[in-house]
């Protein structure tokens, strides 16, 4: 079972994972927080959510569109975006859309082939929870995410871009 790293501010920390990933062929446990596939959520999600006794998350594969979740987002605690291979970059777009377009405020979790090399990009796109499969520690994760002192383009985070920093320097100089 992979360990969960969660972001709190700029700091990554170990976190207890209350959620269980339920495979499509397995029965949903009697109780406890669960993460389901999008297909299963679309079939059984309403029943689970209306019971109100547990939290529900959805796992979205790269070929699936997060737009399918728009009306359910306020009720979802986790959206887990899958990286079947770490070279598959579709989940970065999904994360940005969740945060910037649909204003989702729950947890956006990276699952699958998740390496510390991706930490910077993931954090910038709005991921705040990670199931690394390279044995990365929170310390390594924090360091990797903060490796670059400057960024050049706006994304889901609130970091000032190079142009903002330059404008500020100019103001400071006046």
């Amino acid at each position, binding site marked *: 079972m992979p360990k969960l790293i969660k972001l709190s501010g700029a700091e990554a920390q170990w976190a207890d994972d209350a959620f269980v990933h339920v495979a499509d062929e397995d029965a949903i446990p009697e109780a406890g927080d669960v993460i389901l596939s999008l297909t299963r959520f679309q079939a059984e999600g309403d029943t689970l959510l209306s019971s109100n006794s547990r939290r529900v998350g959805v796992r979205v594969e790269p070929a699936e569109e997060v737009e399918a979740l728009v009306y359910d987002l306020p009720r979802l605690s986790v959206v887990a975006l899958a990286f079947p291979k770490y070279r598959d*970059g*579709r989940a970065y777009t999904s994360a940005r859309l969740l945060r910037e377009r649909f204003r989702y405020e729950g947890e956006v979790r990276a699952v699958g082939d998740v390496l510390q*090399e991706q930490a910077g*990009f993931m954090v910038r796109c709005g991921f705040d929870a990670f199931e690394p499969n390279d044995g990365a520690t929170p310390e390594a994760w924090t360091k990797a995410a903060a490796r670059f002192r400057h960024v*050049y383009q*706006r994304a889901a985070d609130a970091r000032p871009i*190079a142009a903002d920093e330059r404008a500020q320097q100019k103001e400071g100089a006046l």
Partner: protein
Amino acid sequence: MYQYDVIDREFLTDRSNEFRHQVTRRLAGELTEDQFKPLRLMNGLYLQLHAYMLRVAIPYGSLNSRQARRLAWVARTYDKGYGHMTTRQNVQFNWIKLKDAPDILDALAEVDLHAIQTSGNCIRNTTADPYAGATAEEIDDPRVWSEVIRQWSTLHPEFSYLPRKFKIAITGALTDRAAVKVHDIGLILRRARDGSLGFEVIVGGGQGRTPYVGPTIKHHLPAGSLLSYLEAVLRVYNRHGRRDNIYKARIKILVAALGAEEFGRQVEEEWAKIDQGRADLGDQELARIRGAFAQTPFETLPARSEAFEVARAASPALARFARNNVKPHKKPGYAIVEVSLKAVGQTPGDATADQLDVVADLAERYSLDDLRVTHAQNLVLPHVKLDDLPAVHAALEAAGLATANIDLISDIIACPGLDYCALANARAIPIAQDIARTFADPDRAETIGELKIKISGCINACGHHHVAHIGILGVDKKGEEFYQLSLGGSGAEDASIGKILGPALPADKVAPAIDTLVDTYLAARQGEERFLDTYRRVGLEPFKEAVYAQAD
């Protein structure tokens, strides 16, 4: 020219440290080669036939003398004393050791150079007209917009793991020296009737196995909306481009599958949802970048230089050089000087460390410290005073760099081919050298006129054979190198894909076949027609007959 500030420099330092960390992790076995590969590729490091190849980014092909000297130093210290100019205005070193790569990147970072995104499935180095800021025919300076894109695309968090590589080229002139119609995105700066600046946006051009001249999906994108629109294009591609087959993963396949109109519609739909206020660059930053390029300290000079006219009349070599390698400049009394890296017997696009130093000195002394790498694998001194042309020519001649053959038959584009490349089926360099020898007589070359020969050692088409007036593709036939000829392609403003002439030829029959093609053209030529014009008028048949009748 744009100067890196403290932000750009700290960024390069951080990048360099990150790569050093990754190499350490790889050498310690913490990363598998499979995991490391995309990371090294995004730092320009390929594993080739004999060694690692490091591709250094030359943003929009523009260098100052300090940077050129540092490249010469890298060539001397870590390579075999030379560097290779690529068709995307980058510089490659072919003999690099993995353990040296972090030190090389540090040395490059000291002069504001790097290898970020010169490979990998990300947005590559943006290329531009090598005459930018010097040619009179330009509507706006494409370097301004290339620099805007350089910053925006650098370590883009959303678009660093695309289905496949992604190349953008920009021109601000009507004459296309950047091959914008065969790029993933080609941008042509245009003014609308009301005078407002914008881009014609071409998407889904490309070469490789399935060559396309890209369709225009937007005729006039307001210039200030460039980044939000690029974001929309890249997002549609990132989500919908194919990832199941590497040969069908480029954006051209998506555009062709959907049709340009439907692709354009999807981009518009996505663009409408983007918060342009956030995505587009503010006016202040745009003005800062524009200002950096506008500060070229030209002198006010007479349009005619007596010194140059006298020297030219006295020296046939200088006169020939002036006819072929010297191009008009927007400022009176200045000229654009092309430095050919296609001397007879030379590897097209290679420059020795000593030659790089010579050109660096010339750029510093005579060209406002500005030097360009061209898509055709040559160098350009963009701002030379006419008065200085005799001195510049003499210095180039002494360094073996005064070959007067720009756009002529021996100005051949060639990929590294089987001499270096792990993907190649056949050698490209010896074929180029053969052809150059066949047409070594400069008078004959000038009589033939503009003729663009381009050679690729495999179907990946790095040598742009699809868009050559005469294209040559190396193929492997049961372990033997054969070459397929195609005619009538163009990568310029009159872009088209060449047509295959006939069965592939063995290596020793290629140069004679070119000779036959040229004779056929000269016999059929009307007036001032270029080879391409004659071909377009008379078609493939006369050429085919001539070449294969002789072969029988």
